[in-house]
């Protein structure tokens, strides 16, 4: 079977959707982990609470993977029957991956910072954990919206 330029574009889109938010999430989760470790040295029993905050910036990576997966499924990469794509169709898929790719990358880092600040709430007033979670979750809204946009675009493209 012959490869087409469209398939290359589409795969590039899937790759972008996976690796950019992945980088962002890794960084975001890392930031939270660093400040959480500081709290744990004082009080190891707060591990569970800090872990919840640390998990929050991790979702962008998952959203990215999910978008990449939908693109792969759409072009038949997973089933083994690669659809023959025109360059325009490939570019459409590439474009559809951009919202989650970039919003995922940047929002994960910002969310990591907000969650890391939330860790200091746990240090001083552990009963107010929910408010710390909320601050971080406010950031995630935009990743959710971007994910939604990307998915709707991918579903909307006809192959």
């Amino acid at each position: 079977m012959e490869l087409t330029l469209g398939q290359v574009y589409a795969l590039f889109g899937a790759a972008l959707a996976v690796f950019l938010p992945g980088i962002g999430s890794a960084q975001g989760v890392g930031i939270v982990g660093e400040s959480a470790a500081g709290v744990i040295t004082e009080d190891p029993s707060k591990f569970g609470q800090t872990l919840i905050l640390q998990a929050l910036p991790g979702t962008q990576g998952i959203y990215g993977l999910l978008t990449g997966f939908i693109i792969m499924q759409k072009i038949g990469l997973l089933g083994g029957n690669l659809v023959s794509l025109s360059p325009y169709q490939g570019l459409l898929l590439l474009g559809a991956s951009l919202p989650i790719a970039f919003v995922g990358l940047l929002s994960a880092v910002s969310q990591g910072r907000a969650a890391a600040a939330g860790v200091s709430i746990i240090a001083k007033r552990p009963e107010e954990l929910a408010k710390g979670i909320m601050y971080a979750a406010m950031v995630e809204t935009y990743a959710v919206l971007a994910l939604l946009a990307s998915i709707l675009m991918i579903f909307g493209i006809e192959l």
Partner: protein
Amino acid sequence: MAIVDMRKMHLLGLKKEQDKILSRLQEIGAVEIIDIAGLEEDESKVQESTFHQKMIKELSLLDSKISKLMFGIEFLEPFVKKEINPIIYGKPKVSKKDLDMLLSREEHILSILDTISELDQQLSQLKGEESKIKNRIEQLTPWKDMDIPLQQLGPTEKSVFMPVIISKKGFDDFKIKLEENQLLAVLETVGEDQDDYYCLLIFYKDQMKQIEDISKDFSISVQEFAGLKGTPKQIIEEDNRRISQIEEERQAIRQKAQTFSEQRFNFQILYDYWSLEKDKKSCALKMNTTEKTFLLSAWVPEPDVQKVEQKMLEVTESIYIEFNLPEEDDEVPVVVSNPKLVQPFELITELYSLPDPKGIDPNIFMAPFYFVFFGMMLSDAGYGILISIVAAIALRKFKFAGMGKKLVQLMCICGISTVAWGAIFGGWFGDILGLKPLWINPLDDPMSVLILSFVFGVIQLYFGIMLKAYMNIRDGHVADAVMDQGLWLVFLSGLLMLAFPQTQSIAKYLSIIGAIGLILTQGRAQKNIINKLLSGILSLYDITGYLSDLLSYSRLLALGLATGVIATVINTMVKLLGVNVIGWIFAIIIFIGGHIFNLAVSGLGAYVHSSRLQYIEFFGKFYESGGRPFSPMEIRTRYVDIKD
């Protein structure tokens, strides 16, 4: 079903019966004492009063006793074989009789505490000595091959024996320098480590000054062995002997402590008992007292008023109680009361902030939305069954209390909604069972589900606006309800109906009426007419707020999709692997691990985002928060339950 009414209780009693009365109030557990000690007299006078000073003194005595007991409990912790987990089995029960017996032996038990604190001191002394010895061994180890007793080092009649540490880099240069200056000196290396040589420098006493000058140019430090006798080897051996001796002594102390381990339970009982006494005593500080009587004020929830009155009259006859309605500027504490099914959802509001005493309890309005939204975001019947069953088992087996209990109950209830939505969307551990959705699969038809999400959004936003209108009407601001909430509802409904061709003709008029109404009324707080109009027009800009609120509900679709797609990814991997026996083993591991991971991540997401929709979108429309939780005097123990 709402915020419970509070009554202010005034209780006048005799001082000699004070303790009895306070104990009973503590048992009832429905009375929050108000601090009125400083209200009627001036503060300084209160603090000078002998009663007050006596109480403070007693309190500080109690404090020191409690902290001593705490120390005993902590010290003995490693010696108790297996602690009974109170979450699983509940706290051990102690009868009043046992407690009285224990209190009669209290002297004896407290003397055991003294012995234990002595043991603790001995242990820390041993620890100090051990670390000192370990340091010395570390210092001496590089010198262990030097078989000269340390007391013989230093200056003799004509020569000097000086132990020095020379860095490896400068060693050769230093040697050359010594030779160049034709000094009568010998440099004997006795040991080395990574960076340094440990040497004995022997030189002629008269050349001390020259040697010192040369030493300055190199990084050479002179080792001091003040007060040590014997060769390094001997000292190290001696020290090692002492260390094992210390270990033995420590073992002996531990064994002795072990014999006291049974006392730990007694300490715990006493700790709880005295903590309760302390709570009681500190309440006494909040009262107004005369020589023979006391007056206390307290908050009592209205449904408990009769019970409290009756029980107090059982205690003594010589008492006067009255219950009043709260006054305008009172800071009334808040308790909410809801049907059993709604109670778990109180957790969500508690984590945000309790309602203002004059506001409304949002729980019963919020609960159905939370229930639906959580399920829609997790939207996998398999996961729903799993969390419901796990939560139900946990509730039966473990004895949760407070917020923990509410959280587990909440999971149990929301699991049901998750099963329903999973069946609607066709998600049973993703697509592994191949079951058809009851209605739509969001992967095939995301637009329908998106519209459904917005419909839920419109319902909740309208409901929020109407609740605000209700609050306005209840407070007598009917005009505000009509102009602020009513006109917005008209305007928003008009805009919404524009989207449908059948209603477009009415919609136009509705939205124009709404908009004009808003322009005319929203500036009514302003004084001059131009400002009135300007603020009216500006208020239309709030439409962006409503729009973003509505769009925010798209997360219902997005998170539902995310759960579904991740589950599909896991299942695809499983199907790819399941080709032979080894493949199947890995496939099963990935299936179980993957779905647990997805459940954890998506579950957290569903919890967080359905909370957010309540906090920002729903509560933002009407909720007045800022209530202070009601914290009654009650029997709150840490280790044991004291029972009659």
